[in-house]
């Protein structure tokens, strides 16, 4: 029965995250971008909201609630939202698809009070890369897999305890859990990126890495890798919804205050209509994200919904950020306002397919 009603718990999560994002994250967004690093104190605060820890407990797992939380975080700072979503992607995959032993061994490290990063490593450093065409290969060798390949744009790679590496094995995509200190794993220095700079996105190389078969996600049963990609698409759509909302809420007071040729900018139909379009897109992005997250939570087929939510959000966030910047004119191009940062983040997040989860 179709309903858009949040549970009481979800309303609490929403308002708690909104307050946290507004009070703690938003004031730091420029500094983080300038520093191109996330400070550990802020990560600890973010961790203290408990969003990741809840996923490590079977009864606390809820992609819908996560999507709601990620929108709130994304409205303040998409980079920090993605820092959490990246770890959520790893934890969610273990919680949903890990064997009992894998869940038992790995999840407690993410249920504690101290921040712990981990990431799903999907993207590869080549133009024209596609999630359906993996170059990274895992070949079975007795009780082990031998993993070779390069993974790109891994969030906070140097801080991750584990990577969930998506690689091709026997012609199909498979997921291997690789502790970062495994011999053959090397993490490159971040080269710097257009946007989401504080994530320290970096390349990770796996060279003849021996991964025990027991560390294959789901062990003998294997894993549904598509579900991990679906979850990533939903998480990114949720953050883009927040980012779009943040831009909308920032430009509205600006265009009302700014007088151009005798009247507020907001009273020019083109500007007013564009703001209406931005608002509609944000709303639509949210409902699409919820619908896909709901399907994931209910273990319904989700690939199509996740793709549509991600595609729409990725397309419209550029429209929103582009027009948001344009409304500020020259000021939009300067670092005196956060819109240029959001513009960079919008382009970055909409192509970062795979580096997140709900």
């Amino acid at each position: 029965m179709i309903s858009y009603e949040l549970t009481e718990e979800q309303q609490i999560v929403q308002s708690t995250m909104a307050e946290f994002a507004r009070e703690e994250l938003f004031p730091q967004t420029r500094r983080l971008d300038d520093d191109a690093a996330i400070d550990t104190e802020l990560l600890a605060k973010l961790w203290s909201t408990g969003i990741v820890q809840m996923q490590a407990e079977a009864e606390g797992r809820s992609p819908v609630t996560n999507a709601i939380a990620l929108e709130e975080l994304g409205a303040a700072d998409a980079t920090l939202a993605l820092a959490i979503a990246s770890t959520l992607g790893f934890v969610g995959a273990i919680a949903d698809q890990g064997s009992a032993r894998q869940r038992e061994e790995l999840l407690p490290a993410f249920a504690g009070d101290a921040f712990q990063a981990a990431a799903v490593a999907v993207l590869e450093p080549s133009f024209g890369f596609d999630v359906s065409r993996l170059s990274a290969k895992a070949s079975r060798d007795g009780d082990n897999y031998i993993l070779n390949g390069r993974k790109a744009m891994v969030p906070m790679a140097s801080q991750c305890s584990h990577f969930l590496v998506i690689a091709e094995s026997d012609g199909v995509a498979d997921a291997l859990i690789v502790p970062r200190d495994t011999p053959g794993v090397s993490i490159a220095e971040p080269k710097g990126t257009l946007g989401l700079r504080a994530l320290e996105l970096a390349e990770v190389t796996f060279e003849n890495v021996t991964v025990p078969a027991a560390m294959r996600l789901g062990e003998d049963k294997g894993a549904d890798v598509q579900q991990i990609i679906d979850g990533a698409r939903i998480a990114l759509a949720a953050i883009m919804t927040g980012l779009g909302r943040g831009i909308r809420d920032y430009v509205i007071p600006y265009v009302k205050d700014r007088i151009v040729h005798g009247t507020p900018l907001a009273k020019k139909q083109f500007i007013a209509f564009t703001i209406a379009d931005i608002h509609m897109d944000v709303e639509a992005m949210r409902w699409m994200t919820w619908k896909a997250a709901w399907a994931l939570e209910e273990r319904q087929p989700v690939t199509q919904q996740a793709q549509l939510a991600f595609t729409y959000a990725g397309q419209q966030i550029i429209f929103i950020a582009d027009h948001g910047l344009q409304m500020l004119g020259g000021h939009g191009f300067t670092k005196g306002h956060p819109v240029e940062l959001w513009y960079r983040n919008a382009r970055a997040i909409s192509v970062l397919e795979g580096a997140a989860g709900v």
Partner: protein
Amino acid sequence: MVDFSLTEGDLKLMEVMRAERLRARTIAREIDRIPESQPLTDGDHPIVAGTIAPYAALAQEKAPISGLAVTECLMQTVGAPEFNTRPAPSPSGTWIVNELGSEEQKKAYGHLWLVFGVSEPIAGSDPSAMISTAKYDPETDEYVLNGEKTFISNIDLGDGVVVIVKGEPDADGKRPFYNVVLLKGTPGFEIGQPWRKLGTRYHNLGSFSMVDVRVPAMNVLGNGFVNIQTRLNVNRPVQSALGLGMCRSILDFTHGKLAEAGDEVDYAKGRSSRSFAEDKLIRMEALWEATWGVIMQCKWLEQQLGQLSKGFQTQVAMAKTMSGKATRQITQGCLELLGAEGISEEYLAEKYFRDARIIDIYEGPGEIHRLAIARKLLGYRKGELD
């Protein structure tokens, strides 16, 4: 709890509507070639004879549904209506009489089949620009109507019209809007020829003029223009969902034809692995889904707040705007993908392209609704942002 599951009742009713529309599809081209609209006057169209009307099925459904408002829209999204297979169930004019009229007025006119006359040739969606007038004649206790109305649905059908006209200026110089019952046969009330149109040729759309038309004072329903918003608030998302139904048909047709040509959409792949056609289809499906989400949220809110609430007006404007955008972009995009073969009248795709173009015009074009949305967001009133 956030829930997007369809109930047994929803699915059943969507199937009833789908079956209805598939029956209509078998003669859709034939109907489309009739140059002027032929309103359905004497019951159901023979193509659906002996089957239950989808709206009757909705009213009678015993299994749980997502709600009358939500489920009605779900039903509308299943496919293009093709043409009117059933007489219009509840004309707007009759509804207005029964909602706003006094007991005496309801008794006199509530049983009649009355359409609704708003638009004027030079005042499409701007009521303030209307020039049709009502002048009171105290000697006869009558109102004298003058003016011209156009784009009136089903004017050839039924007993008459509830027409919106402007009264004489009050003490502040403002001219009130009146809803007036105007019956066919009244001297000076002339109905013109139906419009010939780009699409929805099955839909009767006409004009009428009023030259010194005299109606008894009791025909004036009062309560002005404002109350009509209620009806429009309820109906606009339904029309939006109907637009999605048209898009569903052309999308399904396009998916099918491109798959036959070896271009089948795979939602798992990323953008670098897709053909142009696949990518475009996914983007159009995404727009369809975006519009679906906005319409259903609007209707869900209507169910929560009640039809008379003003608490979902912005959502109504968004539903209509999104659907207008979606129907234009999707029908245009599908015909682009289908290529030259797509324009052939051998198929219905070109008909959907024509039919769907009205969605972003009637019941307020996207521009008018964007104005309403922007006023809400920016905190401006009418007069401050126009």
